[in-house]
């Protein structure tokens, strides 16, 4: 399995979650972070101006495709970085493919 991690400005949250869902992610985890990057420092004292860090576990294929989607559709619009790591889980079926009900 893979974990896709996204660090982005908090305004991008809804857009990212929508892509997560479309990619078949059945869950995610997120929290507020401070950041430093090409667009300068983001100290995070105002939620609207801060960054969030989101993680979702999903299959490798789905993760790669989701990263590509993020790249195509959101990287230009929002301050954002994303990466994929390979991980091991038990109950892989919990994270596999779109929820069937």
């Amino acid at each position, binding site marked *: 399995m893979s974990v896709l991690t996204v660090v982005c*400005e908090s*305004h*991008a949250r*809804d*857009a990212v979650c929508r892509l997560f869902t479309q990619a078949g992610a059945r869950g995610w985890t997120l929290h*507020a972070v401070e950041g430093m990057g090409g667009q300068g420092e983001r*100290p*995070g*004292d*105002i*939620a*609207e*101006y*801060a960054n969030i860090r989101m993680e979702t576990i999903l299959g490798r294929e789905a993760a790669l495709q989701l990263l590509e989607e993020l790249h195509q559709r959101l990287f*230009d*619009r*929002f301050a954002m970085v994303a990466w994929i790591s390979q991980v091991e889980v038990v109950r892989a079926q919990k994270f596999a493919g779109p929820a069937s009900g």
Partner: protein
Amino acid sequence: MFTDVVSALEFNLLSPPILFFALGVVATLVRSDLKFPEPLYAGLTIYLLAAIGFKGGVALSKAGLGQVWLPALGAVAVSALIPVWSFLVLRVKFARVDAAAIAAHYGSVSAVTFLAAVNFVESRGVPQQGFMAALLALMEAPAIICALCLARSGGPAGEFSWKHQAHEALTGRGVLLLIGGLVVGLLAGERGWKACEGFFGQPFQGVLALFLLEMGLVASRRFGDLRKAGWFLILFAVLAPLLHGVLGVFLGHALGLRGGDLTLFATLCASASYIAAPAAVRVSLPEANPAFYLTAVLAVTFPFNLTFGLPLYHALAGWWQGA
């Protein structure tokens, strides 16, 4: 009128909220590590918006709702129109999306500037009817929607959904706390206010002072981008609030507003949004450069209104009513 302006200016610049704002600016300039944690900012915001709404509602329960609708209509209209001329002026130097994005911010309103104005008017002992918090809630959205239309008139630009914008306009946390507080105040009335005055009333000005310390930090972090913004924009960021403040005095007077209400209305017109508008613009006009609109609004217009604008509009309102 000149002495009025000087006295109002002095009164304002030496009031604790403005002094704490200046302290925040100084803290950034000397590169202090002073920082407000996010939950503190969020807590102060929730407190201030709920308090101002509540207070307004209680005032409204005494004044009656009949007098609100005309100023409300005027407020919505002016908030929708400001982006139009702002857009036209800004097009001289800026691309369509950037011009529209900046215009959205100047049509919309800043709750904190309004809070400072309420505080100023109350400290000076000027009577007010208290329903202006309702106008603050109403003036947030129209400008944003209008400016997004202006931007899109030039072709497709990012995501835009009427449904989404309308939902935001009615349920965004700022609007919800304001309108909700107003309704709570209306229903709870004077008895409710007495019960909660020790929290929503007495500490209010001090909380605002502390909050403006944080806003001083936030605004001054943008000073570094002033060069990127350029002279045209900086000039715009000073002249637009001035113009809109003056316009607000005349229009508000024509709509029947008097006393503190007139100052507050002018301040609403002059103020520029830095929470609601950036959020909408980031999502719907992603190509617009935040270095332009955020810098103009946070580094120039917000401090200008807080320090010089406020007493100016107040003095002008007093003079116009006296004339």
